[in-house]
């Protein structure tokens, strides 16, 4: 937007003309000054590291030594293809995403629809479901480690009460990841719940009235109006959920340390172990880049979906 150069009548014409001439280059620099602080941070700590990551992935950089280390070419990538531990970790991340996304999309939708109908006391549900979301992962990890504790933990006690043996929530490799899914659903459902609530409020109430006049039951209204109208929100929730799951680290590290026996270690923890325990920075950078590409692909899919929805609606 360029400001009109119509001078104010109160100013002498010569001075105004000069100011107009002088203003343009100054505005250019001024505007650049507005945007450059952000750009400095952006380049130094987001774009720069990304580029640096790609560079590192072509070298055998070690955490221990300075500099880039010896040139590896595509060696890191070819080694990654053969690395069972890495692909196991990627699989754990993907499995976690596949298992945790459906409940984190469907449950909050159900909750939001029901809660939206409640006239008073919505604050209570917002509190109950959203409060966990703002707690730090380290705090909830401590709480759930205590709850899952075999012997005197709450869940063990509950299972003993109903006479069923306590499955090794944190110690059985077949169960451990699902224990984390439970924790994650509890922890993050609030965010999606709120998104759905907002989406629900967007739906034109006249639609319901018209449907009611036509004799549609509440169930039919929900099924035929609410859920389709929430299509865009659902897409958003799903994609955000998938992307967040692909970045999973905190809960699995804090509660299981990637165990038992690395059976739950997600991709990011593998990257962490490789870079900081095995000290292979270059190798870990290659894996980081692969993970980044995966997340990028998912983001693009979302963009495509959104665009199609926009044009379709």
């Amino acid at each position, binding site marked *: 937007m360029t400001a009109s150069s119509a001078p104010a009548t109160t100013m002498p014409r010569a001075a105004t003309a000069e100011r107009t001439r002088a203003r343009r280059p100054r505005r250019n620099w001024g505007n650049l000054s507005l945007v450059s602080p952000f750009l400095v941070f952006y380049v130094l*700590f987001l774009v720069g590291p990304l580029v640096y990551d790609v560079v590192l992935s072509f070298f055998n950089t070690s955490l221990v030594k300075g500099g880039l280390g010896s040139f590896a070419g595509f060696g890191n990538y070819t080694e990654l293809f053969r690395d069972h531990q890495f692909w196991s970790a990627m699989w754990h991340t993907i499995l976690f995403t596949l298992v945790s996304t459906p409940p984190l999309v469907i449950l909050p939708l159900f909750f939001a629809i029901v809660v939206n109908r409640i006239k008073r006391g919505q604050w209570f549900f917002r509190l109950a479901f959203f409060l966990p979301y703002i707690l730090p992962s380290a705090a909830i990890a401590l709480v759930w480690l205590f709850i899952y504790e075999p012997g005197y933990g709450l869940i063990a006690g509950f299972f003993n009460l109903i006479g069923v043996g306590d499955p090794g929530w944190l110690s059985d490799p077949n169960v451990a990841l699902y224990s984390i899914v439970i924790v994650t659903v509890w922890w993050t459902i609030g965010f999606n719940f709120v998104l759905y609530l907002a989406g629900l409020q967007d739906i034109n109430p006249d639609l319901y009235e018209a449907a009611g006049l036509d004799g549609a039951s509440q169930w039919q209204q929900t099924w035929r109006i609410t859920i389709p109208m929430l299509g865009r929100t659902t897409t958003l929730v799903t994609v955000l959920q998938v992307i967040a799951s692909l*970045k999973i680290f905190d809960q699995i590290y804090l509660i299981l340390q990637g165990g038992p026996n690395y059976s739950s270690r997600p991709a990011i923890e593998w990257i962490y172990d490789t870079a900081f325990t095995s000290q292979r920075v270059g190798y870990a950078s290659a894996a980081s880049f692969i993970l980044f590409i995966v997340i990028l692909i998912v983001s693009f899919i979302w963009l495509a979906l959104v665009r199609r929805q926009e044009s379709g609606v």
Partner: protein
Amino acid sequence: MAVSASRPRTAGRRDRGSTRRRQRASLFTRATTGVVIALALLWLFPIAWALDTSVKSENDTIIVPATWAISHFTFSAYSGVFSASDLGRWYLNSAIVSIVVTVLTVITASMAGYALSRRQFRFKGLVYAAILAGIMIPPQALIVPLFREFQSVHLINTYWALILPQVPAPIAVFIFKKFFDGVPITLEQAAEVDGANWWVSYRRIALPLARPAIAAVSIFTFVWTWNNFLWPFLAATSQTMMTIPAGLGTVTDGVGIINALQMAEAVLGSLPLVFVFLLAQRQIVEGVAGTGLK
């Protein structure tokens, strides 16, 4: 909707089928509401349990079957926290980091958003596209090069390392830009005609108008920065520089049975966020909705 055409559909017309449907519907509604109420209570349970455990003596935390600490409770775990652990120091670090990051983020993002929305400059389109693309960069995938960056200038385990990488937030720029897009132009034009330059225009006009966006971005940035685990966990290598999540996730502050102590730590570490949540609940919620449905 299987309705025969012979029955007239007028509002207020009641017939037995419709009444029964309505009764079934309200029963259904009551049932589902009941289910959700029960689930909401279930959702609160772990937090309640953590609070309860934090006021027990350690021996009481391991008795089976578990009971509530109604008859006898003690605050020994809480006094133990501050004497036994570095939690006080972690509080300070978390506060410094979260507040500084929030201030810096709001300033840089609002300036950039304002410039992208309202001002012209060369390469504006390119810059905007680059920033948008940055929304898709996950910081977790960058921990290795970031660590290397700070390691090479010997700034690991300093506030610089904790604060600086958390400042750039492309999504915040986007939010501010969208916000300014929706603000009427005329005020600014008048100011410009009066001779205001870019800085004055930003400070005197844009900023005050942007209060709602600033509030939303501040709250989100503060919460997210406080809760950030992975990067502070990496960047703080001595326990005196850790933020609360990093400290809680690294240091075991006692030996033997320390359940009450750990629950007290979890409670204390979460307190500022609960405080923020209770005060700014509506804004957080609306912020989530706003940022989500961009």
